[in-house]
Each structure stands twice: as C-alpha cells, then as structure tokens.
C-alpha cells in the first residue's frame, strides 16, 4: 500500500468537510488541505430556505462544525480562494491566489452555483438563494405585506415560498412546467404539493416562463424591481424577486484538466474521476452500479454519504458507491421525504393513508412489482421498512461487485 501524506480537498461544504472528517476518523494522520472559496466557516445549506430565511435560527446555528471541532480535525485551510488549474498527471493544483499545492490524492467537492436569468439581476430586490449571505439578505426583504415573486417552482422555490408566506408576504410562484416537481415526484404527488401550496395561500402560475424583470427607473432597466414580465406579456407586481431556476456544477476551472466534464465531473463507480482524483457531493456525476447509469444528486444526504465513501476508497480497498438516494423537503407543516428514484412511467400506489389526509406513504413501482422509490408525507418513521425493501435491490451481488472491481479509472476518461 503506497504512502499517503497529502490529500487536498477542493471545496469545504458538506461533502468536502465530510471527506476530511472521515479521513481523520479512519485514522489518516497526514496533511489534509482544504481549499474553500468562501470565507465564512463551513455551513449547512438546507436551513437557508427554511429556518434562516424565516429568521428563527441565528446564522451561527447552520455551522457544519463548531470552531472547536474544526480545530481538532487539524486541517490546513485556504479560505477565499478557488482552484484555478488542476494538473492531474503532475498531482498539483494551482489556486487563484497564485499558490500551488502538491497532493497524493485530490478530492473535488466544489458544489454548485445558482443559475441566473439573462437579465435583471442588477435591479435592487432581486435575489438568488445559495449562500448564507443570500439567505440573510433576502430575509431582510421578507416583511409582511410585501409581494414576492418566485421564479421557478422547484424545491428551493417552493420552500422559500412557504417560508415567505408564513411571514405574511404575498407570494406568487412562476413555473414553466404544468406540474411542479413532476420529475422527482411524478404527476400525482407533484399536484399534491401544488395543492398544499395553494391551499395555504401561495399563488402558483404554471405553464409559463418569465421574459424579464422590470425596475422602477431607466424605463424599467434600472432601480428597484417592481414587476416580473411573463412570456405572454402580462406583468406581476413584485417588491422582491427570488430567482430559483436551478444550479450548475462548479467545474469551469477544470476545463483544461483533462477530466471528463459532463453534468459535473464524470466518475466511475468508485467516485474516481482520474487516477488519484475523486469527486464528491453536488458536483459528482458518478456511475451508480444499481441504477446502471451516471447519476448526479443535489441531495444533502449524498454529500455526507459520498464524502464518507470517497474517504474510505482513498484509504482502503475501493468499494462501489451505490446509495439509495434520499432527500427531504419541508414546506409549511409537511415533511416530505423520499428514498429511491422513480422514472417518468413509474406506477404510484398510496400504501398508507390517503392523498386527502395530512399523512400518507406513496410507493413507486416499475415493471409491475419492482419497488423503485417510496415517498413519505409526514410519515418519516413509516418509510424505514420500505427502505429495507429498496436496500435488498440496491445491494450489489458478488458477481456485480466482481465486474465493477475490473472497472479501471481509465474507463472514465
């Protein structure tokens, strides 16, 4: 077993920090260098659209680890810098401040950046929601009686809509798809989420997109936002606009690295992108052995699980990473959780409760009786037994593992 002395982790969000922490937990005593684009201490994102936006949690509460706990990990930090160039063969990464870091192994956990509309973001009162600063700034604007238009009815947009509504803000969400969340949840549950939102007073405009944002000066091109113009020319009055139209992987500095970049960083089943280069978290597009395809998850749970898997693969015999995807979404008084992945054509069955109730469990089946996913609506405890069923399907057979063990990282490039 070769000697590992220096591991560089690029990105200090949940995935990067979990990788570092797991390396220590497994006994790695060498140097771990953290390259962190942000300057604040590492923090958790899910509460940003919920408790932080609502103002019920002070910002300190979202720290991923206390300063004391971080000290104990004995990491070498570079804050407020990004990787500017990755020399894969040379095992060296250059930073935006000019420094160069040699490594035995590098882990790329650079996460995502929010997508922007083509214009309008220079207007006052227009926000995206990715960072703690974004959440704190938007929170200041969410005052009872104001009108918020949310562009994009995905999980982030709907969570923020629910939070804002509960602060007394008038909320309207604009979403091009006819049914919100149809991709991850299917038509029926997507509609049930829409019904939850509208029954509480959030307005939903589906099936139409936003043409532009309009300000109160310079013939609409400047000042503070006061309207959102839709594709049909109609306008929604707005005091505040949240643009929540998705995010893209942070890979722009890796274009000349030789790594395969397609929907994030392409990795094999062991989360390797190249010899001695791994990826973890939102940025990793790895081969999922059970799903049989490349997968990139933007789930908080995956940041933890993949960070742990990468650390294990660095230090010991590589294992294929085949997690049961898991995510949650909290909207109003509903805790929505899902295990597994359902395709478009999956059949939905309500297996506990009914859609009309405030708690139920929905199971997704493909090809008749094959359970592929399960969703809990205010039913966290009830999901575990269905998860056990999924686990049986997700656990690779010995034959499958043997095939995977042959998969060289060079297959990825």
């Amino acid at each position, binding site marked *: 077993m070769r000697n590992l002395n220096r591991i560089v982790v690029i990105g200090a969000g949940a995935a990067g920090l*979990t990788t570092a922490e797991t390396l220590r937990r497994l006994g790695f005593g060498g140097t771990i260098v953290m390259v962190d684009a942000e300057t604040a201490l590492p923090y958790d994102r899910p509460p940003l659209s919920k408790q932080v936006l609502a103002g019920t949690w002070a910002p300190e*509460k979202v720290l991923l680890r206390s300063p004391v706990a971080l000290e104990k990990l004995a990491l070498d930090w570079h804050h407020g810098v990004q990787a500017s160039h990755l020399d894969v063969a040379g095992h060296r990464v250059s930073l935006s401040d000019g420094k160069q870091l040699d490594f035995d192994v590098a882990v790329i956990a650079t996460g995502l950046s929010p997508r922007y509309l083509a214009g309008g973001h220079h207007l006052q009162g227009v926000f995206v929601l990715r960072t703690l600063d974004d959440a704190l700034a938007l929170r200041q604007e969410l005052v009872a009686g104001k009108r918020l238009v949310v562009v994009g009815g995905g999980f982030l947009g709907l969570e923020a809509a629910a939070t804002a509504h509960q602060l007394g803000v008038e909320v309207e969400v604009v979403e091009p798809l006819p049914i919100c969340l149809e991709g991850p949840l299917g038509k029926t549950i997507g509609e049930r989420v829409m019904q939850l939102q509208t029954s509480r007073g959030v307005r939903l405009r589906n099936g139409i997109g936003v043409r532009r944002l309009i300000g109160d000066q310079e013939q609409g091109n400047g000042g503070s936002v006061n309207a959102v113009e839709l594709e049909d020319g109609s306008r929604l009055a707005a005091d505040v606009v949240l643009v929540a139209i998705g995010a893209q992987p942070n890979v722009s500095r890796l274009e000349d690295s030789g790594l395969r970049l397609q929907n994030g960083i392409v990795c094999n089943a062991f989360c390797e992108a190249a010899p001695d280069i791994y990826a973890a978290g939102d940025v990793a597009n790895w081969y999922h052995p059970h799903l049989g395809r490349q997968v990139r998850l933007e789930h908080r749970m995956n940041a*933890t699980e993949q960070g742990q898997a990468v650390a294990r693969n660095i230090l010991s015999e590589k294992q294929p990473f085949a997690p049961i995807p898991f995510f*949650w979404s909290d909207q109003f008084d509903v*805790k929505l959780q899902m295990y597994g992945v359902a395709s478009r054509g999956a059949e939905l069955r309500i297996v506990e409760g009914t859609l009309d109730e405030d708690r139920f469990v929905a199971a997704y089946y493909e090809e008749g009786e094959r359970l592929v996913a399960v969703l809990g609506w205010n039913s*966290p*405890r009830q999901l*575990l037994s269905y*998860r056990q069923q999924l686990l049986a399907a997700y656990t690779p057979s010995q034959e499958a593992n043997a095939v995977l063990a042959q998969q060289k990282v060079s297959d990825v490039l």
Partner: protein
Amino acid sequence: MKVTALRNRCIASGACVLAASQVFDQRESDGVVELLQAHPSLDQLKKVQQAVAACPSQVFVVEEEDDLSELTLTTNDEEM
C-alpha cells in the same frame, strides 16, 4: 463519550436509526430522534459514532470523545 441529540435540528431522516437501530428510534408523531438507551454498552460505540457522522443535520454533539470507557446519550429540546 457523551452524545447529546439537539432535537430541534432533527429533520427526521432516520440516518441515526439506520446506523444504530438499538440505540436510536424515531418519534411516531414527527419522526424526530428518540433514544432507546441512555447508556448503551460499548459494543455500540462504532455504530453510535457512525450515527453521529451520518446525520445530515448536525443533531449530535459529542463531548469527551477520547473517553471510551462509557457511552452516555442524552437529548436536548431547548437549544436555540
């Protein structure tokens, strides 16, 4: 090792239950973490450590982590 579960951070993922099902359970009403034992035997140590690591919501605070002579678990519902 002392582990405290800050329950108002819990998002009911069940990750701790999956890691250490003899130590953790979820409340029937809302799925929030519940302790099955306050003083688990030391053979649960690794599983409890994995539960702490697996939680996606930083619920668990660990103290005296170098004292592996006993394992004490508590919950805290007041943390603001």
